């Protein structure tokens, strides 16, 4: 391109640097943290911060999986029960079959990916809307978790070290002052990988392209079905990681848990600025969204707000946080 001349530069007014812009995205989160710190001295304690991060890890990983699917313009209602299903699979491999730990972890992740593959196939090949396909999968997986586990928790007592996956702290062994639990590091690792996939790989490109205009992608000669199935399978694999995390945290696979978690995951995604109509979204935003949810829950509890009022306040703040984000983007 010879002449770098002005291409349609849309925005007028002062331009704000990208870094500052990105920082501002945190503003809702920062405002919350500051408010709670002022309100209670117990909030800004290392232990509490770690508790918040720990509380974010499972929902964060689920939300990252949901982000991928939502960017394609789809939705995944099965993340919660799939997580449980993966945990149960890990339980079966480790406790019932007594196989070594890495196999259990791999099994859970593969089970997640396989389930994602099935959802993706139902959506791409049978053209069943994502809402229905994943609603069906949600129920199927919920039932199967109960069937496989015999409707009782599977404990990982025979796999010493299993609960270290989420609760141990490799970081803490190196820098004792910041004993960040492994579960949190795993969340960050998943976030990095997902970010990388979204921005640097073909799969990521098609994820955005599908959400932007699926018909156009098809008309461009891309094998839309294959990539779409790929996105769901990747999301499923990530949910598998969440399954391992929650199983490790509870040192057990709790077969009845999981339903309802999809709503928190999707909420984190949407609070993080990803549009449910697809085509746009970031993993960083989702992380912030998930953190906003955990900080709110934790802070209100620390302040000993009555539980019914916690719910009311949470509702208000979620709306306000998103509204603030909308205002910020409008004025930028």
């Amino acid at each position, binding site marked *: 391109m010879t002449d770098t001349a002005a291409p349609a530069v849309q925005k007028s007014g002062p331009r704000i640097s990208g870094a500052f812009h990105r920082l501002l995205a945190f503003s809702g989160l920062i405002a919350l943290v500051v408010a709670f710190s002022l309100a209670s001295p117990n909030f800004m304690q290392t232990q509490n911060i770690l508790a918040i991060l720990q509380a974010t890890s499972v929902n964060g990983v689920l939300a990252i999986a949901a982000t991928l699917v939502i960017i394609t313009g789809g939705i995944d209602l099965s993340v919660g029960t799939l997580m449980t299903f993966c945990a149960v699979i890990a339980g079966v491999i480790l406790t019932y079959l007594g196989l070594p730990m890495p196999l259990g972890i791999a099994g859970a992740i593969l089970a997640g990916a396989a389930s994602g593959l099935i959802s993706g196939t139902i959506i791409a090949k049978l053209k069943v809307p994502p809402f229905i396909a994943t609603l069906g999968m949600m129920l199927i997986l919920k039932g199967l978790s109960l069937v496989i586990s015999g409707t009782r928790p599977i404990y990982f007592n025979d796999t010493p070290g299993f609960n270290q996956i989420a609760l141990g702290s490799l970081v803490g062994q190196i820098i004792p002052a910041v004993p960040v639990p492994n579960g949190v590091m795993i969340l960050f690792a998943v976030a990095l990988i997902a970010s990388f996939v979204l921005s640097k790989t073909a799969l990521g490109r098609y994820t955005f392209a599908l959400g932007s*205009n699926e018909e156009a992608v098809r008309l*461009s000669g891309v094998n839309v079905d294959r990539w779409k199935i790929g996105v769901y399978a990747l999301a499923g694999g990530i949910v598998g990681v969440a399954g391992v995390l929650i199983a490790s945290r509870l040192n057990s696979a709790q077969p009845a848990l999981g339903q309802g978690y999809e709503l928190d995951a999707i909420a984190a995604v949407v609070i993080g600025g990803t549009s449910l109509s697809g085509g746009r979204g970031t993993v960083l935003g989702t992380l912030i969204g998930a953190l906003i949810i955990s900080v709110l829950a934790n802070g209100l509890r620390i302040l000993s707000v009555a539980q019914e009022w916690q719910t009311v306040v949470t509702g208000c703040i979620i709306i306000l946080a998103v509204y603030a984000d909308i205002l910020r983007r409008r004025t930028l």
Partner: protein
Amino acid sequence: MAGHLGPASVAGAPATLVEMTDIDKSFPGVRALAKARFDLKPGEVHALMGENGAGKSTLMKILSGVYSRDAGTVLLNGEPVEITSPREAQALGVGIIHQELALMRDLTAAQNIFIGREPRRFGILDEGQLNRDAAAIFSSMNLKLEPTVKVETLTIAKQQMVEIAKALSYRSRVLIMDEPTAALNDAEIAELFVIINRLKADGVGVVYISHKMDEIKRISDRVTVMRDGEYVGTVPGADTPIETIISMMVGRTLSNEALVIPNTADAPIALEVKGLNRGREIRDVSFSVRKGEILGFAGLMGAGRTEVARTIFGADRRESGEIWVHGKRVGISSPKDAVEAGIGYLSEDRKHFGLATGLDVRNNIALASLDRFIGFGGVLDEAGMQREAVSYIGQLSIKTPSDTQEARLLSGGNQQKVVIAKWLLRDCDILIFDEPTRGIDVGAKSEIYKLLNALAAEGKAIIVISSELPEVLRLSHRIAVMCEGRLTGMLPGGASQEDIMRLATLRAPAMEVRHAG
């Protein structure tokens, strides 16, 4: 792969690249093609002509694997082929620029162009290479466009250029262009023709669909005409008079009577815009339109005409400026305010801003006037709506099986007519038409010109924004010319193309052209 083209493949090329015979295609309620025929030779530009809804796009969608045919044969290089998906078409060397833009709005221009063929290094996308490749294509097209700009921020014209760039990047042996110039102005069209001539020289066969008759003469080697899904005939492009082609299209000869342009110099002012500003797109724009006057707006792509229209209409927020209607200052902050003040605006982007694609034709036509049909208890007067819709379907000869057909199933040109009908039914005193004849066939075009003229004669004030200079010249009582957000001049109706082009490229920042009126 067959899709790649080199001098060798030209040497060994058969006499015909494509041969389609006896193609049939029906949609529910519509027989789109009936024994349609088409052939294409290497190194030729073969124009496909026909009225709106004649079946041109459908035929080409069959060739490019979007639709499957009901009957007939398709030969590629003399071999029978079954093209069942766009991907297969690409593999066979058939590329297409669709009439309805098919871009991924959230991706950048470069990402759109190379979708499905991203350069990768070690499996990782090579974004730098991608942008360089896109920039190379843009510069070969003499197009100033940043590869990293998001497509949704581009105007329709630039989006169209991205589509063209994308199609070129496939280096197909058969390139179908379905109304590539509908949203382009003369300079860009000239640029496109340079590219087409280069492709011809390389032995590419180009199918060219357009409703702009002058282009056909300039670029096509042969012309095939279709009517009502049937093959009418094929004639040489250069030595067939336009009138012959038109009469083949419409089945009769069109009278091209000149429009009578009445004198409106003393008529009262209907709309006055004073000192309109909005960012860089609109800088201090002031003008006025009288009752009964048609004011043309000319300018190059991105001159800011659409912005001016949208801002007057309240679709975008203005930073400063006043709008006066019939001598009264009006506060317009939303399209609703504008419509209530008697202003209507036909968008240049019918797909995103004009048509409610899921609604049927009747409701699209009634959309801006629904309040008129609300009866007791909020119940709509369906019969009244139908009456109006049917009347406009007749008046604008909209080709549709019925007024309850979903709007998205109409051909592009007919969709445009539906949107025009919507504003005609609304009966505004001031009408702003942005690219009103985009994708509309010759016959209907002259109908619309007559209609605009009649509306003006009724005392309505009309603004026509058009990238087709002959259209502006033919219709307008006065012509406003814009360049880079400024109004650079106001010319009388009889101005020459050269005058307009001079003002349209007048970039001097301190430009203070005073215009009367």
